């Protein structure tokens, strides 16, 4: 058993050496196995990693500075690009933050619609992550199957907002339009077909001996260390702690639904994979419940100062024209104050810390990006493992470059 020591820089290094022939390996920033641009300078002894030093910021786009120059409704497209595998969660989280600041109550129907969209996004995100774990173990088949299913989710987004990936979905106060019949038809078809296809994917990997041998024990982290590192989302739950914002601080009427929070035991790649698989099933169940219990009502709150009036009204009535102008030009008044709101993003607690001085733009907006926070544990998780496990650990942590670097 080797010994791990913590260097003065807070970096973990391993002291055990085999023959003392240590090489330095530059992994990234453009490396086919890293799924995004992360650079790691690895010290390797043979294939075993002795230390890793991550460098990030290769797609730093200054979201927080950009947000200080934009009216509230124009910030939604920025949030799209945080975790672009599940944009609707980011959009809706931002809308809820502004609603919390402005004290807007949305109708129950909006909550349920949001839940459906957010859970679809969660499924889409977990599908990418889990199928990519498969790719990294050499199983490309699952990837091609699951990307076909993801296309169906994209088609559902298209019915709601017209876009596939960067959705800019919804508005402050609700939705831009109600779910239409095509959406319902497609969603029902998806709910009917997806579980069978998903089970096929599940059978390909989850109890596959080769896959299990490959991923069990790769990149583990204990629950204590995970909390120390402020992990959240599936990665924290895989380590064995059942913290889920949806349950802890229910938003958007999540308390109305019956679902369970899967937890793992060892926090390794296999646990992370299985936790995500189970979360997909729970999300499906939530979507079904939301569809069954969908209340009647309006698809947006009655807040003319934030919610754009229908276009035909703009042409006909003076008030609508004024509101339209004010919203589009970003001249709506918003109370001063500061608010922290968090949602359960696809890979953890996605928080918005918003400081408003009553002006047309936020005074300060900080995104709590789960990726950024848990990626710093990466060196600790891969030290003393082999290089191929390091790649698996990275893909199973679901580090999304856009969210990491903001």
């Amino acid at each position, binding site marked *: 058993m080797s010994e791990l020591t913590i260097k003065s820089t807070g970096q973990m290094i391993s002291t055990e050496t085999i023959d003392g022939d240590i090489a330095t390996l530059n992994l990234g920033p453009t490396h086919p196995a890293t799924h*995004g641009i992360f650079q790691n300078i690895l010290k390797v002894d043979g294939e075993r990693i002795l230390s890793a030093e991550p460098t990030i*910021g290769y797609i730093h786009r200054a979201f927080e500075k*950009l947000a200080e120059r934009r009216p509230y409704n124009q910030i939604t497209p920025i949030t799209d690009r945080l975790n*672009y595998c599940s944009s609707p969660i980011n959009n809706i989280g931002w809308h809820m933050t502004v609603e919390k600041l402005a004290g807007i109550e949305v109708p129950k129907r909006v909550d349920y619609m949001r839940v459906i969209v957010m859970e679809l996004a969660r499924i889409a995100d977990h599908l*990418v992550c889990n199928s990519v774990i498969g790719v990294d173990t050499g199983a490309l088949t699952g990837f091609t199957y699951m990307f076909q299913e993801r296309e169906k989710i994209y088609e559902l987004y298209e019915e709601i907002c017209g876009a596939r990936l960067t959705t800019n979905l919804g508005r402050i106060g609700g939705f831009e339009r109600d779910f239409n019949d095509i959406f319902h038809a497609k969603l029902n078809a998806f709910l009917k077909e997806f579980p069978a296809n998903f089970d096929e994917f599940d059978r390909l990997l989850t109890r596959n001996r080769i896959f299990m041998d490959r991923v069990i024990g790769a990149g583990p982290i204990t629950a204590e260390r995970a909390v120390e590192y402020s992990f959240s989302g599936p990665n924290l739950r895989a380590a064995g702690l059942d913290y889920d914002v949806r349950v802890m601080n229910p938003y958007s009427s999540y308390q109305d639904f019956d679902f369970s929070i899967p937890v793992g035991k060892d926090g390794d790649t296999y646990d992370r994979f299985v936790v995500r698989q189970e979360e997909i099933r729970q999300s499906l169940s939530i979507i079904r419940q939301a569809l069954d219990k969908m209340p009647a009502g309006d698809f947006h709150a009655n807040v003319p100062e934030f919610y754009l009036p229908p276009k035909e009204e703009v042409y006909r009535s003076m008030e609508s024209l004024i509101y339209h102008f004010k919203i589009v030009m970003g001249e709506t008044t918003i109370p001063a104050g500061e608010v922290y709101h968090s949602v359960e993003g696809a890979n953890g607690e996605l928080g918005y810390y918003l400081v408003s001085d009553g002006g047309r733009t936020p005074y300060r907006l900080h995104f709590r990006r789960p990726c950024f926070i848990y990626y710093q544990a990466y060196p600790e998780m891969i030290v003393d493992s082999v290089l191929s496990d390091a790649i698996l650990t990275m893909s199973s942590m679901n580090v999304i*470059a856009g969210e990491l670097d903001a």
Partner: protein
Amino acid sequence: MVNIVESPEGVEGQGFFATSLDKVIGLARANSIWPLPFATSCCGIEFMATMGANYDLARFGSERLAFTPRQTDLLMVMGTISKKMAPVLKQVYDQMAEPKWVLSVGACACSGGIFDTYSVLQGIDKVIPVDVYVPGCPPRPEQIIEGLMKIQELAKNESLRRRDTDEYAKMLESYNIEQAK
């Protein structure tokens, strides 16, 4: 029915087919483009969809994704390139062997897009020459495929001597790129 590429113009007779060499080479190049996906952000996910079963980039002879720059023909830049990333991009371009093409996918790669900020490079054409621009934020897979088809068109019709011309050398010089001999 598999759609095989059309043969170039030429003289055909019993047992022979004659055409010019550059047409044959153009045909071969255009239909065996090996892309190097330089995917940094959102557009990269759309590229994954393009590679997936529904859109299937392999139909255009480009299923062989090569991640080593030395063995690729097409640099597909997808996503925001920050100033921190720009030297890396330039180095990757440098390492590619001639003939090489560059496809700039998405608003960020083309012009910086909505990110007119201190940290983002305002278009990759500030550091490397670009052949085809694909607009969109992100572009749909169909658009990416159309961009690739435009590259195929360029590859097919390119003169064999184009990369030896002074004009080409000057263009590279303006980007401070040394031409590989």
